[in-house]
């Protein structure tokens, strides 16, 4: 991806802010933060030319923990924000962070259209199959038999299948990662950021507080048995029939990324003030 602004700084610690994360001990999102900083270091991204955008939820706290520019946005609207940003500032590297509730429920519609638009950015969804920040309600990816006081007998609903939906909607790069393998996740993120167009990376990231059973994920994940394909039909069949724990890059498309046809106009600040004058 030619537009990435790089510099020689290559130390992951340079991308970590001084703000201490407040996730629960054992939360997968700590690993994802490590993966972000390692991927940024690997790419040698200039922090002042890199933006991490998020919505609401535990995972969406991540921009504050990096040293890049960040925008902790409105619930489910991170992709809308990021799309506007990337289209007006194509020189920036834009990475969007979300969770399964923020990304697939509140922001589900934006997810579809971000895939369809294929703007050159990377969307990372930390999927723990639960609304952790609000104490354990079922999310779109929760299993139908998740039986708790908040969902007695389970929801009975089939889980949302984000990877296939991303493919069907036109995402240009689709991968699944596991937070407990942060270096491997970092290398997937590197590939996702480099790949032109809309890259979607679902990171299985356990919520050890409200889904302690997810601590077992580390024993379930396994590398995808076949290499990534550029055939969306083939990729969709593989994803629909896998066990949900295949880790790796699953699809690399060749669609041309969206680019604004009109040059963005530089607006004088005084002119802008006049426009909004009451």
């Amino acid at each position: 991806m030619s537009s990435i602004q790089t510099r020689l700084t290559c130390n992951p610690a340079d991308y970590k802010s001084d703000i201490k994360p407040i996730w629960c001990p054992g939360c997968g999102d700590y690993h994802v933060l490590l993966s972000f900083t390692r991927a940024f270091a690997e790419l040698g991204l200039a922090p002042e030319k890199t933006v991490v955008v998020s919505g609401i939820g535990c995972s969406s706290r991540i921009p504050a923990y990096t040293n890049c520019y960040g925008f902790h946005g409105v619930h489910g609207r991170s992709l809308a924000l990021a799309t506007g940003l990337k289209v007006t500032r194509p020189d920036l590297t834009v990475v969007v962070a979300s969770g399964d509730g923020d990304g697939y429920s509140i922001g589900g519609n934006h997810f579809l259209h971000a895939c369809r638009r294929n703007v050159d950015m990377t969307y990372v969804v930390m999927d723990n199959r639960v609304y952790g920040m609000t104490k354990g309600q079922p999310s779109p990816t929760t299993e139908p038999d998740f039986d708790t006081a908040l969902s007695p007998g389970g929801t009975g609903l089939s889980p949302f299948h984000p990877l296939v939906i991303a493919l069907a909607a036109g995402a240009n790069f689709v991968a699944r990662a596991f937070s407990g393998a942060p270096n491997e996740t970092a290398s997937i993120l590197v590939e996702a950021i480099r790949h032109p167009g809309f890259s979607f990376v679902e990171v299985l990231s356990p919520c050890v507080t409200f889904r302690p059973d997810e601590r077992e994920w580390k024993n379930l994940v396994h590398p995808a048995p076949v290499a990534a394909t550029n055939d969306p039909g083939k990729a969709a069949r593989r994803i629909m029939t896998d066990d949900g724990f295949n880790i790796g890059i699953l699809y690399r498309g060749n669609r041309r990324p969206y680019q604004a046809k009109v040059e963005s106009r530089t607006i004088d600040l005084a002119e802008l003030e006049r426009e909004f004058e009451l």
Partner: protein
Amino acid sequence: MTKAPPEHTVSSPADLLAVAYRIETDAVQRYTLLADQMETHNNPELVKVFRDLARAEGIHADEIRKQAGDIELVARSQRLSRWQKGESPEEVDLGSAHYLMTPWHALELALAGEKRALGFFTSIAETAKDPKIKEMASEFVEEEAEHVNLVYRLMRKYSKPADTWAQDPDPPISQD
């Protein structure tokens, strides 16, 4: 999947120093994150343990940097030890952290990391063809063996917690 041996290419003593440096700095990063977690969750005893461990790993990293002299360790380690097929051997598993864990558990995590590092350098010392790499790797093996013993000694300061250590009479799960 997380414990796969890291892939790397050590073809000179400078490469070995760079890989060792990366291992130590990765460990510093993780221990610091664990200390920060425990600080946030008001567990001062564990904050001290993890900060001490991070400091110890940082001292090792500094020693390697001094030993390396003019060698650009960060850039070289980026090229060499991307650990794409596995994790850095000495890194502790953040996923094993628990808000009620004790210093004994922290040291148990550290011990596992030190043992992995010992195994990593042992495999290089045993398989390297270059005598200089072999010699340097053997020195790292000695150091890591010392670290393993140190963690064992520290663990003796704490008794093994009862099996019920994770039981919280007021758990953070509202729906039960």
